[in-house]
């Protein structure tokens, strides 16, 4: 995404706040907000460790929050700002919820459903396609993920020791390698 407006930058920053919350609570640092009529109507952060449910991604939490106050049809006029490209699951869900458009930070070379692995936002489907705009504050999104993945996941049955991992602060413009590492 080449030019971002001040509003877009603001909403993305709110998504990053959610992602940082996630990192602070031991969750994969992915955060998002839903914006309807220029107002944030849903927040989400990854919640898989706490809930013991691998499907509790930020997007689902945000949508469920929004639906407490708005009908599903409002999603047709709603934009999603999310720090990482939606995964295959979320990309399909957003299609089913008929989101208007999606703005994301970094790509997701392991699970990405809106361009990286699959192109679910535009594939033939029984619901209309939606546009995606990637690359908003991409480096910050990757740094958050890197920070998370040098930690050990003590929620996993057999945490992998990561004593020798150091935070990589290098950005030699190799998005693949960085997100690769981040989404292992």
């Amino acid at each position: 995404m080449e030019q971002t407006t001040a509003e877009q930058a603001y909403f993305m920053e709110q998504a990053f706040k959610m992602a940082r919350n996630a990192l602070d609570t031991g969750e994969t640092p992915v955060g998002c907000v839903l914006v309807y009529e220029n107002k944030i109507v849903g927040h989400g952060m990854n919640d898989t460790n706490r809930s013991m449910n691998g499907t509790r991604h930020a997007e689902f939490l945000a949508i469920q929050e929004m639906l407490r106050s708005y009908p599903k049809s409002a999603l047709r006029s709603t934009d999603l700002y999310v720090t990482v490209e939606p995964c295959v699951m979320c990309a399909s869900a957003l299609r089913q919820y008929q989101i208007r458009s999606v703005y994301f930070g970094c790509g997701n070379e392991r699970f990405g459903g809106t361009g990286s692995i699959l192109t679910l936002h535009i594939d033939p489907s029984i619901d209309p396609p939606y546009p995606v705009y990637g690359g908003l504050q991409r480096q910050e999104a990757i740094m958050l993920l890197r920070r998370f993945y040098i930690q050990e996941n003590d929620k996993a049955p057999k945490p992998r020791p990561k004593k020798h991992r150091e935070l990589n602060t290098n950005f030699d413009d190799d998005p693949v390698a960085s997100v690769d590492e981040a989404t292992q």
Partner: protein
Amino acid sequence: MEVQDIIRGVQPLVGEVRPIKTVQETQPAEEYDYAYVAEVNVKSAAKVVKVLDAAIPRDPARPMNHLRRFAKQSNLPKHLHPLLLGDNASPQSIFVLIPPPLPEVELLQELLAPFTLPPTNPSDAQSQPHSDSNPAGQVQKLHLHTVKVPTLPPLSASQANKWSNDLWPVVYNPAAARATVAPPVQVLNRTREFIQPDAGWYLSLAREVAKESYQSGRGRGVGAVAVDPEIVERILDAGGDMEERWADAIVAVAGDARYSRREAGQPSVAERHAGRGPNPVTQRYDADLEGGPDLHALMRAAEIIAYKRRVGDPDAENDKPDLSPLEEYFIAQLDSSALELKAEETQDTDTDVTPVPEKYQKTGMEESHPIHITSSSTSAPQGESSTPVLRIRPRAQGGYLCTDLDVYLTHEPCVCCCMALLLSRFRSVIYPQKGRMVSGGLASEPVVKPVPVSGSDSETEREGTPQQPAQTVSDANSSKSREYYGIHWRKELNWRALGFEFVEDVPQGEIAEDGIAFYA
């Protein structure tokens, strides 16, 4: 009807469990890219490899081991002869391949210059513009030729031959080729054999769960049954009869509940439908009334299991799913096989290691082999044989997501739910073939029905009236307009599961793909 009566009334479906091919198998990708070829001195081959490997990093995600690094003149494909051999090639030469991603030309020139051959005749030397500007006359300017190469390993010997003749010499390694496109055959077969005997029961119960959702008006007629293969193993090890005890291995059931959510504080779609019985909105697809994938059967199964994994966590009660009678019944059941195991343990304390079925779940190419795992018995501290053991092992005892469970569904799940099952780490997924959906994410090719066994002579006999048999075949093979994702096993995805379709001997009811298009 009482839940136990429903379970007693279940009649198993009769049919065959068949693996769903991977998209790598059904849509074999032939991807090509460009490589460089350079002529070097045959005596320097070993040094050339060393120099190239040291200076040029390889992308481990794109192994090029199937491409031969060197080709002798005699092994070069015919079409490259004019390009590479010219009129009189030196017998001293061999051709080295530099596969993609391609390094800088300047770097290659520098690396390979010491290993080039002197020109064989003056005219050749003149054709290389910089060669005579070098006063020493020793180092030759290297010619880098561009050739097309296949970037994926060949999947058959004949493909390998074709490429070797038409593109560049390749190596065919059957095991390596399969590992990149599909789960190992032995793992797939073993799991299929494990699933086959009881699949009919679970799929039949899934239909009962679907019926409950549909009849109550909470959702569409889609159901899921999650089974723990570890419990099945324990029952079998203890000499149990699965015909009697199939239901004992079920950890959770879940029905579709897409009409049950109250949006914006308004009554749900289910509540708006006055009276009992199926909701009339099931007869069409209106996105506004479809709830969302988080209310689909498979997602709800993951949610229900997650809830039970958090037994003892006070916070979990806030996340308690809204359960139907069938759903409520199954998550309350105790693990009778664990009780038996404990009884055995009290006699022989050395047997507290439970073999776990071989699992196939992996994160990288290099680990694409079955992993034998053995887990310690998770039963409660010794001497407390009265402690109830839940079928869903709580987090405190090592339970994690839906790891290594099998899920039986009435329909092919939507793309969203397919990825949800991978993220939940299910071991395998099974649905009846006639439950395929145009919106599904597992099938990898259209259903190919066997062509009626009529020899070619019988066809000629009937040449006058061919309509009827021809019609039948084309109908059976007609492919619905849909995508074939094969999400269960894609090489790009970090998690994979085994996918199976259940082909009923005598299919009954309608084919879901022919009905209303919705997401299951």
